[in-house]
Structure formats: structure tokens, C-alpha cells
């Protein structure tokens, strides 16, 4: 295939060629950034919480009506009732749960009066049933025993826990040598030291949005041996036996209202519901960006079809003459395909540069991650294939121009 005639023909049609090339470049830039965001958001929404999600349900924000002086006994009564329900493995009360979007954090230090804390961690309260309640895996140390657990009279009660359970990620951050169990850490709000008594494999923090508060310490959580008894709302986490979820989902809130009606429960939801809620916007963004990508490719493809068809119509006589002079149909098709390849190649080159600079700008403006070069390359290939596919129909139409056309008219 000779590039010479194609390039000199293109120079007479500069604007059309430039329009297609720039369109392809912008399409490429948007598409690979969109795909990159899609990939990140999908990965984000698949991060595990560490809990046995299919079998865990949450009775969210139980709150007593009026000041309940016997709140501690009521909490124990509720827990006993929940644990005795058929189909329930275990249950406990806590201030928050992964993906809920609300909770507490604290700064943990290795030394007293340290200026900046060594690690930031989400704080969950729970008794000895917390590990079984969430379905977590204890990988080192021990669980809380009944002697560890005390009542916490609201968030303003700042008594120190007797010991805490931390996640593996947090333990490694605090004590990289792997000897966290038995070591003591200092809490930001309290000056007392607290020993680490156990390590769980994983427990995600409550905040899961993309660039949100929790993104910096996603798997750094601690469990403190407290039962939160106060006028604050708190949650019951119920771990159902496999296959018993729907029955427990019905029975658990009913049971609680049988125990006492002087309470408000915001809602009862499964961990699966919580995941769908927490990542709704991420999923939405994925769908929207996906649709935009498809629409962009379609618009660009139709643009190529339209302009190339026009070029074919414009060159009908020249094509007829070429055919009459012995060019095969294949040669005509190849002409348009090569022409498109040249335009698309230029477009892809500009597009890759544009994609990278768009990403760099977003890294600054939205704290996004750097684009993998792989995305730009895949984008370039996609755009070039798109060009070839779009040009095929007009090119075939051009090839079907009869050589006899050359002999007609002046």
C-alpha cells in the first residue's frame, strides 16, 4: 500500500481528517480514564469487611425511650433473647459496623505524650461474643472473657479498656516485628496504657467512600471490651446459622419488641444490604461511566461512517477511474482502511498524551490515583479497531462503484 497518494489526498481534506483524529483523541482520553475509574470503584466495592457477610444482620440504632436507669440490664436482656432465638449463632451489641458510615476513631501511640499518633483506628465496642457475632477470625492472642467487659456509660465515659483486640493490619503497623500481642499502646483521649490481647484477621472500618475519611486506614480497627449503655443509639449484630437468615431477619426485631416496646429501632438490615447502600454511588458511577464510554464510541464510529461516506461520494468518479485503470475492489477497500489507520494512529497518539494529562490533572484535583499506562495502550488499540470497523461499510460501498462510471459524464 502506498502512503503517498493517501497523504496527498488527505491534505486536500485536512479539516475532515483533523476532526476525526481529534474526536478519536478525546474519546480515547475520556475512555481510558473512565475505565480506570470504573476498575477502581469496582475494586473498592469488593473489599472484604472481615465479617461473615451472608449470615450477619444488623439491628441498627436501638435507642431506649426516656432515660433508662436499668439500661445495662435491658441490654443484657436483649442479648440473651437474641442469642436464644432459633437459627442464631451469636449476637452482641456495638456502636458501629463496617460500611455504616458512622463511628468513632482514635489515635494510637507507642509512647505517652507522643506528638503524632502512630496509627489511626476505628473503634468498635463489643463483649466476648463480638468475634463470633461478626464471624471474624482470631489469629493470635485470646478473645475477651467476662472479666474484661464493662459497661461504658455513653461516649463521654472515658474509662480505659482492660485490653483490646486489633486487626492484623493495625498490629503490623504498630509492631512491625509481629509481637503485638501483650504489648501496650497509648490511646489519644486517655493517657492510660492498654495491652493488646488478641489479633483478628480483618475488620474493616465503618467509612468506605472512595476518598473519604476511612480510606487512609481501611483495615485498621480495634475492638474495646465495652457494652455501650446510655441514651445513645447502638446496634445489635446477629450472626445467623447458614440458611437461617430470612427467618432470623423476621424474628429478631419482633423478639426485641416482645421484650420491651419502649424503644426505637431505626431498621433491620443484612450485611449484604449494608454493602449495597454503602457502594450505591460507586456502582452508579460505574454504570454511568460505562454508558458514557459506549455512547462515546458509538458517536465517534457514526462520525467516521458519516464523513467517510461523504468522502466516498465526493470521489466516486476518481474511484471509478482507478477501477477502470485496473485497481481491484480490495485495493479500494484497503485505500480507505489505510487512510483511516493513519488518521486513527495520529488520533491515538494525541489521545494517549491527552489521557495522561487528564489523569494528572485529576490526580491533583480529586486525589485520584495515577493511570496505568496499560489503560492508555488498550484505549489506543480499541480506538484504532473502532476506526477500522467504522470505515468498513463506506469502504465496501466505495469498492462497489463500477469502473464504467469513469466513462460517464465529463
Amino acid at each position: 500500500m502506498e502512503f503517498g497518494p493517501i497523504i496527498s489526498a488527505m491534505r486536500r481534506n485536512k479539516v475532515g481528517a483533523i476532526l476525526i483524529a481529534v474526536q478519536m483523541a478525546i474519546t480515547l482520553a475520556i475512555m481510558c480514564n473512565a475505565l480506570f475509574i470504573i476498575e477502581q470503584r469496582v475494586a473498592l466495592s469488593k473489599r472484604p469487611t472481615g465479617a461473615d457477610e451472608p449470615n450477619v444482620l444488623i439491628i441498627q440504632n436501638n435507642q431506649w425511650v426516656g432515660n433508662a436507669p436499668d439500661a445495662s440490664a435491658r441490654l443484657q436482656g436483649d442479648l440473651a433473647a437474641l442469642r436464644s432465638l432459633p437459627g442464631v449463632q451469636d449476637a452482641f451489641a456495638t456502636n458501629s459496623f463496617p460500611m455504616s458510615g458512622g463511628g468513632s476513631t482514635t489515635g494510637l501511640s507507642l509512647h505517652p505524650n507522643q506528638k503524632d499518633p502512630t496509627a489511626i483506628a476505628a473503634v468498635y465496642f463489643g463483649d466476648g461474643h463480638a468475634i463470633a457475632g461478626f464471624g471474624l477470625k482470631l489469629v493470635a492472642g485470646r478473645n475477651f472473657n467476662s472479666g474484661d467487659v464493662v459497661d461504658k456509660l455513653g461516649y463521654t465515659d472515658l474509662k480505659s479498656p482492660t485490653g483490646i483486640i486489633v486487626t492484623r493490619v493495625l498490629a503490623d503497623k504498630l509492631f512491625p516485628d509481629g509481637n503485638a500481642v501483650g504489648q501496650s499502646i497509648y490511646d489519644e483521649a486517655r493517657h492510660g496504657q492498654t495491652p493488646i490481647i488478641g489479633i483478628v484477621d480483618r475488620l474493616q472500618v465503618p467509612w468506605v467512600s472512595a476518598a473519604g475519611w476511612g480510606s487512609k486506614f481501611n483495615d485498621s480497627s480495634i475492638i474495646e471490651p465495652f457494652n455501650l449503655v446510655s441514651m445513645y443509639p447502638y446496634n445489635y449484630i446477629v450472626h445467623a446459622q447458614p440458611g437461617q437468615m430470612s427467618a432470623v431477619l423476621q424474628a429478631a426485631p419482633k423478639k426485641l419488641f416482645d421484650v420491651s416496646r419502649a424503644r426505637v429501632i431505626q431498621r433491620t438490615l443484612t450485611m449484604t444490604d449494608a454493602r449495597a447502600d454503602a457502594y450505591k454511588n460507586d456502582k452508579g458511577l460505574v454504570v454511568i461511566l460505562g454508558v458514557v464510554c459506549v455512547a462515546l464510541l458509538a458517536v465517534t464510529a457514526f462520525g467516521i461512517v458519516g464523513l467517510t461516506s461523504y468522502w466516498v461520494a465526493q470521489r466516486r468518479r476518481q474511484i471509478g477511474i482507478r477501477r477502470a485503470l485496473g485497481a481491484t475492489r480490495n485495493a479500494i477497500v484497503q485505500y480507505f482502511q489505510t487512510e483511516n489507520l493513519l488518521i486513527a494512529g495520529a488520533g491515538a497518539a494525541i489521545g494517549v498524551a491527552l489521557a495522561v494529562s487528564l489523569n494528572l490533572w485529576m490526580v491533583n484535583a480529586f486525589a485520584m490515583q495515577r493511570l496505568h499506562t496499560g489503560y492508555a495502550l488498550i484505549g489506543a488499540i480499541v480506538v484504532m479497531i473502532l476506526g477500522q470497523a467504522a470505515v468498513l461499510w463506506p469502504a465496501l460501498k466505495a469498492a462497489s462503484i463500477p469502473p464504467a462510471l469513469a466513462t460517464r459524464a465529463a
Partner: protein
Amino acid sequence: MFTYYFRLGLRSLKRNMVLTALMIAAIAVGIGACMTALTVFRAMSGDPIPQKSKQLFAPQIDNWGPDAHAGGPTDRLEPQLSYTDVLGLMKAHAARRQTGMYATLQSLRPTDPKQKPTKVFVRAAFTDFFPMFEVPFKYGGAWTASDDEARAAVVVLTQDMNDKLFGGTNSVGKTIRLDNEPYTVIGVLDDWRLLPRFYDLAIRPFGDGDAIFMPFTRAIDKHMVNTGSTQCNGDVESGFEGRLKSDCIWLQFWVELPTESDAQNYRAFLNNYAAEQQRFGRFHWPPHTQLRDVPQWLQYRHVVPSEVRILILVSFGFLLVCLMNAMGLMLAKIMGRAGDIGVRRALGASRGAIFAQCLIETGVVGLAGGIFGLLLTALGLWAARSLLTKEFVALAHLDWADTGIAVLLAVGATVLAGLYPTWRAAHVQPAWQLKAQ
């Protein structure tokens, strides 16, 4: 002439239906994507209180010191204030109006005893809250400054809450029970919505919010704990009293400063206040304060999520591609008619006349694209509402302004894209075209 060209434009569009349809579709899709993103953005970044947004200010005071904001905001200022500072600023009364406030969740005993109790957001504020934010009343009115001082057990209900509790009747003088304590209704609001609820952005700024209002002093007296964000630093003693004495920040504070000089004076006052705290030995650092009005506050607190900005960016890129597409097609279409144009030029039409005719023709394409684009925008908004949470698509709907913007954007952008093809058309050499025929 205009109507004639308009009709010619319509006729020419009919001549090459496929090309015309492609052009209109490209513009419509581009406009649809753009307007969907823009409408969401406009709804989220709108001014919640346009008549007063430049007179309402949120003061910030660094009560933790320069070393204490590890991992926090880079300006070393937090968005809320401590109880100590709110009391200090309330007592100083240095602004025309001022109110400290916080939200608390309380259980509300229903009037029908068979119903389960519900939880409601109660906002604890001072009397100035109502005139400051121009809160409209349907029945009764706000509590007074003496109610604030007396820690009166009074409440103001929103219209929705009054509808729910009292069927929308005048409930002034009636009693409701919050956490088993009786409160007298002294006012019912008219329809009042602030989007976003700028005065407390920690609690669902675009969602349902405060249903009941009560005096701040009463809420503190009853140890009503705040819901939303509490951040602590330094020593904190246990209990509610410990929280009040601490430097934990959990309260919002707003002032009304009608003129620019009032704002200047208040800035000076804030610095003096902080300097005074330094003299008293409470702060061990020089004054570090800030005063932001509503638009500045909304920007500072990133009320519009970055996702919406990404969508805006993507959709405008998309529109650009669509317009270039339409431009290419228009070029093809107009140059395909070079013969006709040549004849018209030979018959005496001026360049200007050709230019005007082609421009009107592109305008017609833009108009059609805009109208279809509006339909797509409606579709896009419907999809966005089902795909995203309220925080993203807060009451985003198409109003007349959006409709106008869409059509103007479509026609304007299309005509802009049509300028080059039109210019080419106006420069067709009549002699060449006639010879080629």
C-alpha cells in the same frame, strides 16, 4: 428573509435524512449528557439562601493549637467549635445576631399510644436562629431570648412534623413528649427547605433533617448528646459535664453581619477573643481564626462531591466530541451542496446571504438537537436518581432555567461548530461549480 432561510433550512435537512439524523442525534446525546451533569451540579451547588448568603458567616477558632491537627485539615482549623468558645462568643454578642447550635436524636412519643415511638432530629439553637435564617412561621412564632435564659421547655415544629403529629392543624399550646419529657409547642414552621443545609453539613446536607427545634440551653440542661461529629483533643473528663468543659468540638456557630465593615469588625473581634484566650493561658499559640460566608463555607466544606465534578468534566468532553462530529457531518453536508451554492452565487446572492442561510440551517439542527437533548436529559436525570443516592441528586429536576440553558447551549454550540463549514460554503467559487456541472 429569516423565515425563508428557516424554511430552506428545514427543507435541506429533509434532503439527506441519514446525515441529518446523525447530526441531530450527536448533538442531542452530547447535550443530554452535559445537561444531566450540569443540572445535578446546579442543584448541589446552588445558593441555599441567596438573599442573605453573604451576610451569614461561620467563625472558626483554632482551640487545639498548631501541633494538634495531625492528618486533619491543612489550614489547621476545624469546622466546629467547643462549648467553651460557643458560650464565649454568645456572651460577647459581637454580631447583630448569633447562634450556637447542635443536632440531637430524641425519641418522640406518638400521640396514638398504639404506635411505636419514633426517632427525630431535634436542633438545639438560640432564638436568633429563626430571624437569621429567615425561617417562615405558619402558626405561632419563635421562642424569645428570655426563654433561652429560662431554659424553657418549648419547641418549634416543622410543617412536616406538625402534619404528622397534629394533622396540620394549629398545634400551638399543645404538648409533645420527647424522651418522656413534656414540651409545649410555641410555633409551627411553614414549608422551609434549605438545600444544602449549610448550617450543619455533618448531617445529611441534602437529606431529611431537623424536625423539631428547641432552646439550646434546655438541651444542654437535659444533657442531650449531640449526633453528628465530635472531635476531641487533649484531656477530657468523663461525663456530659466533662464534655462541656473540654476542648472537644461538636457545635456549629453562625453569625449575621449585614455589612462588609461588620464582617471586618467581627474578624478583628475573633482575633481579640483568641488573643484573650492566649492571655488567660487557655491557648498557648497566637490567634488563628477564620470567618467564611455561606458560599465560601460550601466550597470550603466540599459540598459538591468530586464524583459530580468528574461527571461534569466527562460530559463536557463528551459534548465536545459530539460537536466535532456534527461539525464534520455539517461540512460534508454543506460541501455536498457546493453546486447549489455556486448557482445561487452566480444568480447574485452575496457571500453574506449564503453565510446567513447556512448559519440558520445549522441553527435549525442545533434547535432540533437541543429539543431531543432535553428529552435525553430528563431520561438521564431519571437514571441518575435511581442509580445514585440522594447526596448526589438532591432534588435535581429540570426547571425553566435548565431548559433555557439546554436549548441555548445546543444552538450556540452547534452554530459555533457550524461556523467553519458555513465559512467554507460562503467561499465556494461560483465559476468552478458551474464549470463542473
